């Protein structure tokens, strides 16, 4: 690509969702272009089409004015387009150079000429400031360095356009600065970089131009100099609130769930939750806003002790449940509705009736024997009460639609009578009718005096349901608002990493340390 790459009127449908709705995008040579948007905006899909992973339904792609066909990643690579995915495509056991030449048939013959490849790699590495040692095993490298290996793979294939999908999600601040320096150098080289992100600050810091996507459409393209953070946030999140939930105002009751300075790591040891504290009272919904990947899943799992906790405490009605088993949590009154309804919240091969007692199987027993009668009655009651439709309780749960499965899981957890409910992305992938039904149930649970933690990437949902909203970004709570009177822009800005406390709003509190002694009010 010498001058520009243009994507015109790209349309892409998946079952049930229009991921790209006549999207237009132009990338110039020698620029860093940011693709900004929230979860589900369609930016990843658009880039997967550009990289040849998906085939678009209609539209065209032109490079330097000529139409090109991208049927597979091989086509894209041949045209000089390369992508670094969020999940790296690296073989951990192989060395840097082996990963780089994988799939290439260099030197003509069948032999692997690692020496020559290493030379070329070292040269590229030096020229672009990547600082890579070809012979090191990739699995032993820190994540930031692994990412540079992904970049060198693209440069080795002489990619002129590099796409990076949420590249800073896994990086420390120092690694991030390093990456940005490398990207700027690539730009000087005449290459183009597209960075897919939801982080506004980075867009302002790094990009030349930015395209904002929302609900599958491209809403605007701006040059960085001429747009303000506020404007971009507005473009990113601003939309009419379609649904409205009837929510009564209630004075919250006694504190039920208290989290103190929780620290949780992931498999590689990096901290995903960095000292989070909050408190939820009976009859209150605390929403956690934030784009996927900022530590919410880890937080939810840690609260149930499905994940190792590095530090901090979790208190349920005063009792310290931090280190107790998941089963114990349940018995003491804390339930969890996970985001992955098909692979974690249910066993799709088992019947609806069997799923209805998942987690409470000991309760529906007489001694060692299962009380199948009571279990079936319970399942019947659950299905009726929560409106799980179109399947008998003996058919496999996998046959239920997403909405019905969610109602089943929700019903199951609510009917076990917990004091606290942790709910994660409850309406993801559901149609409007199912969304309304789920909202109704959550509000009813609130009426019944349960303390609910609602983690959601859908601002609309939070504004409708939550009493208070805390924003989570990079493992920390960066701000808390009363839902009444909060604006989407403020929250959206914080979700994108915008500075807290800059924008107006009520009851703003920033960052982690909330001293107890502030009139007993905690976040």
């Amino acid at each position, binding site marked *: 690509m010498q001058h520009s790459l243009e994507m015109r009127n790209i349309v892409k449908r998946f079952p049930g969702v229009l991921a790209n709705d006549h999207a237009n995008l132009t990338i110039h040579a020698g620029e860093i272009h940011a693709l900004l948007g929230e979860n589900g905006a369609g930016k990843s899909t658009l880039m997967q089409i550009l990289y040849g992973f998906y085939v678009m339904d209609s539209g065209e792609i032109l490079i330097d004015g000529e139409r090109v066909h991208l049927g597979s*990643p*091989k086509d894209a*690579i041949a045209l000089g387009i390369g992508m670094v995915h969020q999940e790296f*495509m*690296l*073989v*951990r*056991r*192989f060395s840097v150079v*082996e990963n780089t*030449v*994988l*799939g*290439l*048939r*260099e030197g003509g013959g*069948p*032999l*692997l000429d690692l020496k020559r490849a290493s030379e070329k790699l070292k040269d590229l590495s030096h020229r672009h400031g990547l600082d890579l040692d070809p012979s090191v095993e990739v699995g032993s490298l820190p994540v930031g360095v692994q990412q540079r290996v992904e970049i060198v793979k693209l440069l080795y294939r002489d990619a002129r356009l590099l796409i990076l999908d949420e590249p800073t999600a896994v990086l420390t601040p120092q690694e991030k600065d390093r990456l940005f320096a490398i990207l700027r150098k690539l730009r000087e080289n005449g290459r183009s970089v597209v960075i897919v992100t939801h982080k506004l600050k980075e867009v302002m810091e790094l990009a030349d131009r930015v395209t904002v996507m929302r609900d599958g459409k491209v809403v605007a393209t701006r040059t960085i100099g001429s747009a303000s953070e506020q404007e971009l946030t507005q473009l990113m999140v601003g939309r009419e609130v379609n649904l409205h939930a009837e929510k009564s105002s209630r004075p919250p009751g006694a504190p039920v769930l208290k989290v103190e300075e929780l620290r949780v790591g992931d498999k590689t040891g990096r901290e995903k939750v960095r000292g989070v504290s909050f408190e939820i009272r009976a009859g209150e919904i605390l929403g956690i806003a934030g784009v996927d990947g900022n530590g919410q899943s880890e937080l939810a799992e840690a609260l149930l002790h499905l994940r190792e906790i590095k530090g901090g405490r979790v208190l349920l009605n005063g009792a310290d449940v931090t280190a107790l088993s998941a089963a114990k949590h349940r018995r003491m009154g804390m339930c969890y509705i996970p985001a992955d309804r098909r692979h974690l919240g249910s066993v799709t091969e088992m019947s609806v009736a069997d799923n209805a007692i998942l987690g409470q199987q000991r309760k529906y027993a007489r001694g060692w024997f299962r009380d199948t009668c009571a279990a079936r009655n319970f399942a019947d009651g659950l299905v009726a009460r929560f409106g799980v439709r179109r399947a008998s309780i003996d058919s496999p749960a996998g046959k239920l639609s997403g909405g019905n499965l969610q109602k089943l899981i929700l019903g199951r957890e609510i009917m076990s009578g917990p004091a606290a409910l942790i709910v994660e992305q409850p309406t993801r992938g559901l149609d409007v009718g199912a969304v309304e039904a789920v909202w109704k149930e959550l509000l009813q649970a609130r009426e019944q005096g349960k303390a609910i933690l609602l983690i959601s990437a859908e601002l609309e949902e939070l504004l409708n349901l939550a009493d208070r909203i805390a924003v989570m970004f990079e493992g920390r709570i960066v701000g808390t608002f009363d839902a009444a009177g909060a604006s989407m822009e403020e929250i959206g800005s914080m979700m994108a990493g915008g500075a807290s406390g800059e924008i107006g709003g009520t009851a703003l509190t920033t960052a982690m340390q909330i001293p107890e002694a502030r009139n007993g009010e905690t976040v």
Partner: protein
Amino acid sequence: MGSAFIVAWLSASLRLAGPVLLAALGETFAEQSGVLNVGIEGTILLGALASFLASYYTGMIWLALLVALLIGVAANLLLAWMYVSLRASQVVAGLVFNVLALGVASTVYRWALGNSALPESIAMFHPLHLGALSNLPLIGPVLFSQTLLFYLTIALAFVAHFVLFRTNFGLALRSSGENPATADSAGISVSRMRYAGTLISGAAAGMAGGYLVLAQVGIFRETIVSGQGFIALGIVIFGRWNPLKAAVAAIVFGACDALQLSLQIFGTHIPPQLLLALPYIVTILAISGLFGGKAVQPAALMTPYVKE
């Protein structure tokens, strides 16, 4: 017990190690591509029969070996199809295949020979005598008086190592077993690599059957293969999926096997079964994860790959 014992023991160790090493070399390719081919036990049996019949009818030992190889490949086409295209459980398909192979081998053997008496001998590979080398004290009889097949197998170990670690094919094969999604995104056909791995293990296992018959036992019995295939699986793991280390592991296995034979002749109080069990126990410990063994196996071993 003096040098005579040592010589007899070491010489037997190498001799016994040969066939299982050959099978293990092929299986290394299968497992590096992500396939656990439990069916090599049955394949060795089929190869043994094929080579026996070929040698019986033609008297040409190299042809017999070739026939064994081809039979091994043909049989594993079925297995590869089940493992890769049908994505059937590899363990199930392999185990059942072993039973099928036993049935086929027994039946074909009886067809071919009917009720006639067993042949006295068939054309075989005989231990070589490499002149002055074979006459060296100690090393001579141990290292330089093995059959040609043995030297061929050792050479193949080096070839296998080279192909796996120094060629594009080897790299692509290993990536299919480590991270098929990455291999796929690099433009490698994971299916093709896994077919290749399985067929290579079939070829080697077939040849190993030929090795057993043509260089060791000299006749065919239905019980000629009793666990060598599973031992080969153990050698692959013991050798950490590396052909050269597998060679060492095979010799260790052979040494334990030979030791209990020799000890029986010389008479000791150590129960021979303990020595026989030792290599298995060591392998179990090696792969138990007690010593971090799990991290070493190809990451996607036994995981079928579904191309999205």
